[in-house]
């Protein structure tokens, strides 16, 4: 049972608390979105979950154990992180990029094994990039790159996949593809956490939302509960109107607040 938990976790910079303390639990098979305006602490919380940052107060736990007490490699095998910045200026081929994902699984001296190969091939197939396997990554489009990076994190065979603004620079149809991919991953049994500020796209796929503002956790739970119009108004400073659509999921339309 894979659970990522933040227990009164807080981050300080220069003596000031810039995030937290926050407590939240994310369990297996869920697709959770961290939403909030820029600077609300979404990236911070995501990085805390990924073990990339240590909390200055409180703890981050994975299955009850403190993340930073575990060896770095073990955490890397269980938690995969897909960063926001997809621009890679080097001519690594897609296969080389995917192979890098197996770092935590391979010893320093061991060559690439069958298991590694299998993981790479299946990740490539899952993300539909097998036809790009020998292309240089800096020649791919934004959407293709994003899929490659997601495939790279799949290669890790992780329990948790954390994505930082995965749809930020993508065309709409690529963005939808990526989100669909994330949803299918969570249906596979992995825990997917997405940090984003574009929640209209995300809310169609996500079961759980965590709303953040100013470094604090404002609300969390199901979409209807978290995204009440009053909450949206307070956090995002806009008026939101819910519009029903043919899929059944409502869509939010925003208006400037008339003062």
């Amino acid at each position, binding site marked *: 049972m894979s659970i990522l938990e933040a227990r009164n976790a807080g981050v300080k910079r220069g003596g000031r608390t810039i995030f937290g303390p926050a407590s939240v639990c994310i369990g297996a098979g869920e697709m959770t979105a961290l939403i909030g305006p820029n600077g609300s602490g979404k990236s911070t919380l995501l990085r805390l979950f990924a073990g*990339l940052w240590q909390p200055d107060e409180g703890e981050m736990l994975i299955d009850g154990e403190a993340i930073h007490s575990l060896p*770095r*490699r073990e955490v*890397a095998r269980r938690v995969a992180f897909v*960063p926001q910045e997809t621009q*890679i*200026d*080097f001519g*690594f081929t897609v296969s080389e990029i995917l192979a*890098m994902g197996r770092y935590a699984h391979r010893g320093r001296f061991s060559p690439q094994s069958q298991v590694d190969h299998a993981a790479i091939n299946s990740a490539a197939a899952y993300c539909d990039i097998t036809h790009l396997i020998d292309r240089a990554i800096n020649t791919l489009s934004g959407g293709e790159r994003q899929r490659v990076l997601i495939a790279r994190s799949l290669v890790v065979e992780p329990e948790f996949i954390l994505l930082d603004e995965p749809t930020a620079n993508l065309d709409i149809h690529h963005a939808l593809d990526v989100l669909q991919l994330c949803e299918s991953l969570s249906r596979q049994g992995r825990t997917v956490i997405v940090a984003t500020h574009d929640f209209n796209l995300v809310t169609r796929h996500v079961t759980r939302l965590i709303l953040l503002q100013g470094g604090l956790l404002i609300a969390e739970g199901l979409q209807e509960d978290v995204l009440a119009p009053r909450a949206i108004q307070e956090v995002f400073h806009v008026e939101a109107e819910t519009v029903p659509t043919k899929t059944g999921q409502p869509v939010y339309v925003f208006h400037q607040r008339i003062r």
Partner: protein
Amino acid sequence: MSAAAQNTPLANVSSRPRLRLSVFYGFLLPIMFLSLLAAVGIGSTHISWPTILRVAEFKILPHAWTSSVHVTKADVVIVWLIRVPRVIVAFFVGAGLASAGVLLQALFRNPLAEPSLVGAGEGAVLGGVISFVTGWSATSVLSLPLMAMVGALLALFIVYAMSTRGGVTPVATLLLAGVATSALLSSVASLLLSVNIVNWQIAQEIVFWMMGGLDARTWTHVWLCAPFVVLGFVASLLQTRDLDLLQLGEETAASFGVDVESSKRMLTLTAAILTGAAVAVAGLIGFVGLLVPHAARLILGPSNRTLLPASALTGGAFLVLCDLLARTIHPPTEIRLGIVTALCGGPLFIYLLLRQYRGGANG
């Protein structure tokens, strides 16, 4: 500096295909062997190839088999004591500098990174200068390499101590600290030189040494340099996957399980050993650490696992050829090796840069 690095592509801009590794080595290995042979065969005195082969027989084969070999003492001395060690040292120095260049270009994610950026090069120079001005280099062959190696490692230690806070060494800070320390150590070396300039003979020796040179290299220097270069190369080879990941960003690397701080320490230390060993026996030689990895990357792509051995062998061959040139262009004077590498490497480097920027459509 890091902002500029982000705008500078480190590798292929267009989707120009990489050269297949087998083709590359198919070119490189024969050139490498030929240059080694040429460097042993050509020198300021003429020695014919049959004689060289007989000397090789005489020295390598067990004594019982070589009783009928006729070689004069002078031939043996010239080939085995003068030329062969020199060529071997040239090869290892070139390989060491090129490997250090690969490490640092990946670590700093910058194509203009070269071995001397972490201060090790100038530290070695300062160590050497101290050995000269105290007169120790006049009495002992070991003093110069020893002081140079110690200087390189101490410089690295200073640079690292300056740029580490709370166990974390940001790469940008490391780079700045390295550049600043290099400047400082270089000026101290110049100060020592200027104060001692009245002693014309020592001053001349220092200046010539600082321009790089492989004159009077013996087997002693081979044993001083080769172990460190081999050690450094093997250590680098074990870290190529870390290098690849670090090149993509520290956060990415950490997320895949790389112990970033420990990796950076190992990498800079390895680079310092390689650079220190090279400067210890050859003085300051520029361009090999900058040009060879860069050119290899343009040809073979950025994967460090292929890049490292390819750069090392190419660097070795390149320096052997440069040294041959340095010895034979204007006999009996030798042109200083650092000058030859700069004169050969500079235009080549400019050509590669122009080709890359003209071909690529980056804005």
